[in-house]
């Protein structure tokens, strides 16, 4: 029963949201939105319901693009009481104290209450992003972000965790834009330790991702792998963080030649990523690696992938490579590779694509084995543009051993004989079937786990149960008394 009600509520909410999105009734001014957000944060803290904070943070990206220094200044002026130390410190971070801004709030609302510290951190976060929007502000933003991080760990409030996660991301971003990402490591590592000790899942997820990004940026895959093995990624992390985490895992795994794992991780990253239109950059980056991994596994990605409006342009180079691998032509592969070298180097996929060379050869051999029942090694060498017949013999031998083709080499006659294809029935089929069933069952179990129940709903039921018990007791009492009465009466008779 509770489920159904909950779902209705959710639907309603979603509908509301959709309506909001569809017909934007003159969008609230950034100032009004900040104030509304502050109210929401306040509500979140007082009701211990992190949902409201999450809602505030969801609008962060959109909001920070529309906000500027003046808006923020006014917001700070309005939110905080006149003589507040926090206000002063917040204002000191905002650049360029223009007089017009100061004169605008001649009669601020008489707010006397100091808002919760979460609000301060939220405003600091906004300030950091504003500072980061121009290159002059990087150093200052870094300083502010670091100070905010320290403040968070001093305050140690659980209601602050969602905001803290965003702050840590901002710290990392500030370091990166400042150009010295490597220096961020000690700070982030210690913050990660603190977060995991405090069971601050959201910050922990954000920090692990920041660290992984940091390591992978410098191609320190060894360290990144160690970090992954030493930490556990919190299961309650948000989808966005999970998508990032899976993306980084995939990148580590593909370097280590663990292609099937990498494929799984990247697929997860794609599934968990936000809509392609909202985050095109991430979507494209994941797909670049995804395609390369598919190729390395010997699969050919779907053609439809390259027609996707978001991906079409970004993946042109990869499309060419796929074509070359599909035809199994080494010369086409080499020419495509040299044509797009700069793109691949920029995407950091160049070394991975170099590994594809052997796959091109394998595809070529497989095509030959399908079309010929017997072919001389000289012809193979000629068709695949190999250097020598001797090489061809070794390569075919390796392909047979690796199970790429079925067949054998007859050395005396210098040809390869191909055996027919085996039927598609065997233990492998049940294996694949088992894997799919397992996936579906897992999906079902996960979705059951992911259902949300209204907070304190069971209290009502408990109260009702208590009431019922109470009534029952009374009833029993009455009956007892009634019986007594009867007896009494009987006695009288």
């Amino acid at each position, binding site marked *: 029963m509770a489920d159904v009600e909950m779902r209705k509520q959710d639907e309603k909410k979603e509908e509301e949201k959709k309506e909001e999105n569809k017909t934007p009734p003159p969008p609230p001014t950034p100032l009004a939105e900040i104030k509304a957000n502050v109210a929401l944060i306040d509500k979140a803290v007082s009701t211990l319901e992190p949902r409201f904070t999450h809602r505030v943070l969801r609008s962060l990206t959109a909001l920070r693009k529309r906000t500027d220094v003046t808006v923020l200044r006014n917001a700070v002026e309005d939110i905080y009481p006149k003589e507040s130390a926090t206000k002063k410190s917040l204002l000191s971070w905002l650049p360029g104290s223009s007089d017009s801004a100061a004169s605008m709030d001649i009669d601020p609302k008489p707010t006397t209450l100091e808002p919760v510290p979460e609000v301060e951190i939220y405003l600091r976060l906004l300030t950091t992003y504003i500072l980061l929007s121009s290159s002059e502000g990087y150093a200052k933003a870094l300083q502010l972000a670091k100070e905010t991080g320290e403040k968070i760990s001093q305050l140690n409030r659980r209601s602050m965790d969602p905001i803290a996660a965003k702050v840590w991301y901002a710290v990392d971003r500030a370091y990166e834009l400042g150009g010295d990402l490597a220096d961020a490591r000690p700070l982030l590592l210690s913050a990660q330790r603190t977060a995991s000790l405090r069971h601050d899942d959201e910050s922990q997820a954000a920090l692990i991702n920041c660290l992984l990004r940091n390591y992978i940026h*410098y*191609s*320190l*895959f*060894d360290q990144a*792998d160690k970090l992954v093995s030493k930490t556990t990624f919190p299961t309650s992390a948000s989808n966005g963080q999970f998508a990032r985490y899976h993306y980084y895992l995939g990148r580590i795994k593909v*370097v*280590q*030649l*663990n292609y099937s794992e990498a494929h799984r991780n990247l697929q997860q990253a794609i599934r968990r990523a936000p809509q392609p239109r909202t985050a095109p950059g991430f979507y494209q980056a994941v797909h670049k690696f995804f395609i390369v991994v598919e190729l390395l596994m010997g699969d050919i990605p779907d053609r439809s992938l390259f027609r996707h409006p978001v991906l079409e342009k970004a993946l042109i180079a990869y499309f060419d490579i796929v074509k070359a691998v599909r035809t199994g032509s080494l010369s086409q592969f080499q020419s495509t590779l040299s044509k797009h*070298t700069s793109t691949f*180097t920029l995407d950091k996929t*160049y*070394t991975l694509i*170099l*590994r594809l*060379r*052997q796959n091109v*050869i394998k595809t070529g051999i497989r095509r030959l084995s399908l079309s010929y029942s017997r072919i001389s090694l000289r012809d193979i060498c000629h068709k695949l543009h*190999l*250097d*020598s017949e*001797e*090489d061809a*013999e*070794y*390569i*075919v*031998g*390796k*392909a*047979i*051993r690796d199970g790429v083709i079925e067949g*054998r*080499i*007859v*050395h*005396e006659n210098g040809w390869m004989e191909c055996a027919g294809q085996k039927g598609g029935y*065997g*233990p492998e089929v*049940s294996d694949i079937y*088992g894997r799919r*069933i397992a996936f579906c*069952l897992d999906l*079902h*179990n996960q979705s059951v786990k992911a259902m949300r129940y209204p907070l304190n709903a069971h209290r009502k039921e408990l109260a009702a149960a208590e009431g019922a018990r109470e009534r029952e007791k009374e009833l029993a009492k009455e009956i007892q008394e009634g019986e007594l009465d009867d007896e009494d009466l009987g006695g009288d008779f």
Partner: protein
Amino acid sequence: MSSQPNLRALYTELIRSFTSQPCDLKKCGTLLSQLKIGLIEAGLLLPQGELNPTDLQVARDILEIGAFCSIRARDVPSFDRYFSQLQTFYTDYSSVLPPSKREYPIRGLHLIRLLTQNRIAEFHTTLESLPLSADAIAKNQFISHPVNLERWLMEGSYSKVWNAREEAPAEEYKFFVDSLMGTIRNEIASCGEAAYERLPLKDAATLLFFPNRSDLLRFAEERGWQVNLTEGTISFTKKGEEKMEIPKQKLISASLAYARELEQII
């Protein structure tokens, strides 16, 4: 290190005995162990924080010589230790120190070593973390040598690997050639078992790069091949044929698991 004249003297002596022809390995070994103690005392073996660049450079030189000496003495675990100690100098102090001319030979040696032990995953991880662009890797002969070897090995162009064994860019690379040849011989043998039914002895010898027949026969015995000396052929026993067995245990346990899960849903 300037405060320790003793170390300085040992260092110059080490360089002298290392560069002399032929290299005096025994003396290098004793000098190195003395020097390492000295480095630990000076806090330079595993440097931390800001230190004098010249001191660091000397420490790096000592470790590099140590790495080369251990390769020459065929002491691979010791090479590994030197290499991991050198990592600090190559990555963390790369902005402070002038680049070392021995850095890439040592990195290349490390790559070859990973290759000979078939640690391909680590090979690629190390390769990715090299501070070089793709072009630079192709141009740097110390690195491109192992990279090419790996590519040929993966492709199956074993004859190219065989031909490249004499083209090692540095003397030390040849120490790994023997074990590398062992690796590819085993690879070829396992390919051959799958790909051929039988093979003439003479051709088998060329395929496996054996110079004479007795080596081949010994190798065939190791792998358990049937050698027919009168016909001069080797026949490979096909294994794994007709071994289609139904994995009962697995199927039963899978079915039980499905039943259990279904029950939970209902």
